[in-house]
């Protein structure tokens, strides 16, 4: 029963709801659908140019035109990026969360420090590591030199640049995964551990059979976020190497082709769709896997 008047007044909530709805439709949902439509046309970024339907031509061009070799490299890079980031970031995040959950002295401080990079943002983080990884006078190279007698080019190395980008990405968002796991850990009832302790479980067993099943929901959330995040993030690439030295991913390519490429917009649209399909497959598989492990208590 709606308590705020009758007749025309009844439509006020709807009227106000139309504002976020309109913003969403115009700036996100609409463009998202249009991008899918564009992927089947020869749309150009020239005002007033005509657009015609070309079927799967863009998709064909993606993989069989002149620079399709680079395309495969981007896709492989994207998959490497996603797998490594998802596994390492969540692995380390979970590990640190479990450690901090034992009520270590100063755990709030550690927690805050590990989350700090997210607050600083990608522009600052990229520049900090730019300094750390400076090939001429960076501290990391001094360390390498002192330890292994070897120097690296870091973000200017064809073989290693992408690996360092992955490192920075994980360094930046590890605290995020850690927080979500901490939230999960704090919801586990303590008496379960007591019961396990009485039954003589060791640390690993209690983690494996008590903690892990009970924090499965936060696993699901983390998996979802890491997969979608890692597949669509490219700001870190833009801020460190700007796609040079074999560091292009699909998300970066979409940006590059849209923003600084030719005037053809069908190609990046098709790439967006392919990217979306890959995300969908991995998300469905990952969520199924983690969902299976969730238990009721």
């Amino acid at each position, binding site marked *: 029963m709606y308590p*705020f008047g009758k007749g025309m007044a009844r439509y006020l909530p709807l009227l106000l709801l139309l504002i976020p*709805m309109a913003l969403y439709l115009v700036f*996100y949902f609409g463009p*998202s659908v249009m991008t899918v439509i564009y992927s089947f046309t020869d749309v150009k970024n020239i*005002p007033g140019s005509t657009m015609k339907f070309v079927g799967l031509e863009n998709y064909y061009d993606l993989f069989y035109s002149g620079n399709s070799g680079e395309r495969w490299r981007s896709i492989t890079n994207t998959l490497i990026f996603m797998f490594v980031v998802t596994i390492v970031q969540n692995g380390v995040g979970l590990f640190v969360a479990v450690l901090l959950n034992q009520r270590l002295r100063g755990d709030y401080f550690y927690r*805050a420090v590990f989350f700090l990079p997210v607050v*600083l943002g990608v*522009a600052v983080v990229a520049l900090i590591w730019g300094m750390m990884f400076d090939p001429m006078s960076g501290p990391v190279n001094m360390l390498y030199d002192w330890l292994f007698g070897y120097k690296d080019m870091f973000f200017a190395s064809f073989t290693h640049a992408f690996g360092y980008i992955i490192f920075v990405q994980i360094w930046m968002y590890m605290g995020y995964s850690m927080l979500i796991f901490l939230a999960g850990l704090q919801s586990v009832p303590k008496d379960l551990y007591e019961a396990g302790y009485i039954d003589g479980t060791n640390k690993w067993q209690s983690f494996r059979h008590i903690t892990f099943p009970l924090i499965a929901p936060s696993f699901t959330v983390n998996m979802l976020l890491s997969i*979608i995040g890692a597949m669509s993030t490219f700001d870190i690439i*833009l801020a460190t190497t700007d796609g040079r030295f074999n560091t292009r991913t699909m998300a970066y390519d979409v940006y590059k082709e849209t923003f600084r490429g030719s005037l053809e917009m069908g190609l990046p649209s098709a790439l967006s769709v392919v990217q979306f399909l890959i995300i969908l497959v991995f998300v469905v598989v990952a969520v199924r896997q983690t969902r299976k492990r969730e238990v009721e208590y």
Partner: protein
Amino acid sequence: MKSSKSFTILSYAVVAVMLVLYVVPLILVLNVSLKSYPEYLINPIGFVKEIQWSNYVTAWTEGNFANYFINSLIYTSVATVLTIIVSVMGAFPVARKYVKWSGFIYMFFLLSQFLPNPMVAQYKLMLSFKESFGFFGYDTKLGYIVLKTTGTGVVFMLFVGYIKSISRELDEAAGMDGSGYVRYLFQMITPLMKPVIATGVILTAIGIWNDFVGPIMYLPSQANYPITFGLKEFKGQYGNNWPLLACGITIVAAPLIVLYTFIQKYLVDGALAGAVKS
């Protein structure tokens, strides 16, 4: 539950190593920022010998940071306030089912997190807005602010959850007393939502302040640069002059770190409540 001593020691050791990995880069940046360029070249990582405060003056004036800060503040504050307002407008009727298809609208708004990448068409749209209106769209402050204002996604979801915990009888009582819908929403409900609004403000503001790709795509004029883009340009100008660049990093990071120490409790709770990566 008792925990073995050796395990505790090991935990502290691991945390200490992690801490080094997170704190040392910041300390090194601060250290480098106070060196003269010759001193940096001779000894890049040693402790600073002669403190050069003038680096900061140079970086501040050369880097045009005052201007970028103001831009960032405008974008972040306006778009965040608008985002909170439209999120309340969207979340309240959906949570209370005062509009038809509430369940569907809820799902539809949450879908915003999983849509195919809208970048291509969004870019084209912003360009065509600029073509037709001039003051709105591509490369305008207003266009960028409106683009960054969203009433969907995580903040909306948090608000819906929170509003459900506010008693419906309040709505009825206010209605009986003749309060109008709009007045009720902004004078009664919004003050009751303070904790979740704080979370929403923080999450939104961090996202907008740190947006890196958006400004590069939609704000190409120097007059419109926010701080993130400004820092990138600064790096472009001073390529390898790390003392100056470190000043730039510190100038941008210090206010954030200070602010963060005050709000970190809310922020951590907020991140726990709703997890989002933009």
